[in-house]
């Protein structure tokens, strides 16, 4: 099942939704992301996690209460590259999820 899907917003193809598998805790996913080029910039006691990609400046927003996960491509990512870029990142999230799921079993 494809977990990444387009979530069009103000800018075409910059917003993407990622369906985090239910068994994975949001905190565990955030922890895994921080080991793979994502910097956790969440504020203490904030109702969401906010991460920034260390090299490409993309952002991830993860809402604690609803588990909604949104990938925001950096706004100056070339329009023609956005889908490929999101899919590449989506594949990396899938790999992290598989890793976390295998650790649980």
């Amino acid at each position, binding site marked *: 099942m494809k977990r990444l899907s387009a*979530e*069009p*917003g*103000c*800018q*075409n193809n*910059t*917003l993407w939704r990622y369906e985090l598998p239910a068994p994975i805790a949001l905190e565990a996913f955030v922890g895994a992301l921080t080991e793979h080029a994502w910097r956790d*910039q969440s*504020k203490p006691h*904030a*109702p*969401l996690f906010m991460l*920034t990609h260390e090299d490409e*400046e993309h*952002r991830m*927003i*993860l*809402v*604690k*209460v*609803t588990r*909604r*996960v*949104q990938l*925001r491509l950096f*706004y*100056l990512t070339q*329009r023609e590259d956005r889908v490929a870029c999101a899919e590449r990142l989506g594949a990396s999230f899938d790999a992290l999820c598989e890793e976390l799921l295998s650790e649980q079993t």
Partner: protein
Amino acid sequence: MSGEADQEFLQWDYERNYLYAGDQPVCFHCHHYNLFIQETIDEALGAAIGDQLRREASADAWRPVLEALFSGQALHGSYEKLSAAFELFASTGQGKLVLEDASLQNAAISSEALHYGTAWRMIHGTQAALHVTDGLAAGFISAAFELAYELAPGSIEVTQTACIAMGDARDQFELIQHEQPRELNPTISRARMEANTGQMVDSLEEETVSEITRAFCGMLAQITPDDRGLVEGFGILVTLTPTAYYNTLCLKVMEYLEAEHPTLLQVSEQMLYEAGRLCGFNTFGGVLKSPEWEAIIGRERTADPEETLLHTCAIARSFGFGKWSVHEYFDEDLLVLRAPATYEDPFVCELRGESKRPVCYLFTGAGESMARLAEDVDWSNAPMFGLDYYDETVKRSDTSWRAKQTQCRARGDAFAEVTVER
């Protein structure tokens, strides 16, 4: 956004829903509104006069904010003041200015990204702008240099000599010092904003709206700019700007047309209405659809029209637009919005006294958008906020919502009121 809610320099007035930097009212706006209002000014006045107006309005609006910053931090040296000023500019999402040479004789300022140029590229893609886009930055630089070198206000003119939106590699600015200072545009202080605020009003479900407003203000205070000094949040680029900047632009355009081309006055009023409508639709829509909003309300939002209206009021309040309130709502028929005042009418009251026409263009245009977001947007079908969706849902819509300002402080009424009818 450098806007620690309770810090001394930047303060929210939760009673009237204004936000102040030092003594000056400031507000958040998105790149859609910022660029559209700029293009509206250029269409009304021409690009050359438009750019000059933006530079002057910006310098005069930012000057008292910078004065408060310098005195609050006890800054003395020119370089120290300029550095602090440029840091403030970046913290408000306007972009990062680079001080290449801080001397008055050879001053050189550049940037890799400013809000307006970036907004141009986000909206128009690779299409090059025909004119410079960053008059607000130019005006800010002139005020910063005047204060840093203790020169007469209005004696430094800054022009943009290179512009990324026009295809240049960097934005660049140059200074010209004039012996004779130009005439200044007035601003309005916190005390005068409060004095010109009308009768307090409450919204339907006031407690809920107030509670969400406070939560959203807290989140806005936590948003930080990226390395370019730009703030991306809720799917939009956001800035914090003195309201005197927007008010001066609108007031000057209307006064110029009234004097020079009275037949065009109504057209320009319509364009300012359109800027408000566009802003309300895309900004409020983008925020409501964002994960941040889910985090604030603690659940997924519903498509209930009244909930949408109340939430848009909370967004407007958090942005410093005033205490926008739903006074009456009958679905598919009528929406009445009220506010003790917006950020628009106290400015006109203070500087011009009474006006023959209502002056809350943002409130009125956004009022129509609020009704459309509540009733015409299919939230279950993942609306794609942006210009295409706006054209389809608002401009080419078969549903004829129309907003009119029915009460205005600037006309002597007790509060501001917008009636939206279908």
